[in-house]
């Protein structure tokens, strides 16, 4: 019987959070190893488990998977969340890449100088409202379906709801001009696997705090 996927990362969101979301959405149980000391990271490197010396690392199906997008694509395909053909797949890829561009801005904010924080967050909100959210609102409006692609739950829906919740942590009323996205958020949150992941006690991680930033810097010797 196949072992559960094992995730190696810091005890926080970072680049691993989207992977946790996708596994959870697919109803796949996973184990986690949290990196807290630089010696743990050095050992992973020395053991040759990190292809390019980086985490996230996911051990599954006899492979050491690294590179966030490679991992996410693999999971999406394996668990049937990647559309039914190439045309649906490319739409999912476009939507998730756009969403992840936005999320990257949020993810990097705690690592930037504190005096830039206000400005960074304002820019993120601005881009979300002007460039990204309107695109997804329009997609839902144009086809009138419950999910972004192919009338079926996919990776694109998981990525979008993760992004929406992250943005609401920055700006609670960010969806105020986007009624269909509001409905989307409610709808996707009610999917049993997602609902479970949103409960306290799940493997979903908290927003980054100073302790998280310090741990990352220590482990990676930044």
């Amino acid at each position: 019987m196949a072992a559960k996927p094992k995730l190696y990362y810091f005890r926080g969101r970072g680049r691993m959070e989207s992977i946790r979301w996708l596994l959870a959405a697919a109803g796949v149980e996973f184990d986690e190893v949290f990196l807290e000391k630089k010696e743990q990271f050095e050992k992973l490197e020395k053991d040759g488990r990190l292809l390019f010396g980086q985490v996230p690392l996911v051990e599954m199906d006899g492979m050491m998977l690294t590179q966030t997008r490679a991992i996410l694509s693999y999971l999406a395909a394996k668990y049937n969340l990647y559309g039914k053909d190439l045309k649906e797949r490319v739409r999912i890829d476009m939507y998730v890449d756009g969403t992840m561009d936005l999320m990257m801005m949020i993810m990097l904010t705690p690592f930037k100088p504190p005096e830039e924080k206000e400005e960074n967050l304002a820019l993120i909100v601005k881009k979300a409202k002007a460039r990204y959210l309107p695109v997804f609102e329009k997609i839902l409006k144009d086809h009138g379906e419950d999910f972004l692609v192919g009338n079926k739950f996919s990776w694109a829906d998981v990525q979008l709801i993760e992004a929406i919740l992250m943005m609401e942590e920055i700006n609670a009323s960010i969806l105020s001009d986007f009624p269909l996205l509001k409905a989307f958020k409610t709808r996707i949150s009610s999917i049993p696997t997602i609902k479970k992941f949103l409960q306290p006690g799940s493997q979903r991680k908290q927003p980054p705090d100073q302790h998280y930033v310090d741990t990352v810097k220590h482990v990676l010797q930044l």
Partner: protein
Amino acid sequence: MAGKPRLHYFNGRGRMETVRWLLAAAGVEFEEQFFETRDEFEKLIQGGTLMFEQVPMVEIDGMNLVETRAILRYIAAKYDLYGRNLKEQAWIDMYVEGLKDLSDMIMYFPLSLPEEKDMNLEYILERATSRFFPVYEKALRNHGQDFLVGNRLSWADIQLLEVILMAEECKPSVLSDFPLLQEFKARISHIPTINKFLQPGSQRKPPLDEESIKTVKNIFKFERGMFLKNMATIVAEY
């Protein structure tokens, strides 16, 4: 009959170059629509074909594809350059993601502040020879095959050749400690479609020069010191 794919970008490498390589390697003819000024770029944005107001954009099979990775994956899958199963695909994805990190550094290098050029170049070459190239050299040594994945040509091989050539433009002897990569380079360069793309007169673009750097800065409104911020971004990319 479907028209040829049409690429929308400026007349230079940037993020579109890997798309050109992949199409060329697959033997697919394509057209290009270049914008040369900020105004022309804004006109393209107004036209509503850029999903997130960004390029690259490729018109193909009745779609306006954006996001470089999405475009490359589509082309790789369509032209059978993406492995034969999910595991091969995962290996190709890991290899090309690594290559993207290196090629982004090289891509942004011309935007360095003058006083930081030397330092940035040294950093790029150090990364190339200690983090990236050893991975590919080892992959080839371990399986002893001609191609990176699945014993047949894939997107990973094409992008590796592209990045090797870019790195050699930074330092011609950059492959001196990597004999298998040297052989790989010769071998892949001889594939007829790729050989053709390497000839003068193909749609392959030259590196940025003084003139084209100015054009790029104008079109995309890059700030001063953007490269250093990006270097910092790349380093702190966790």
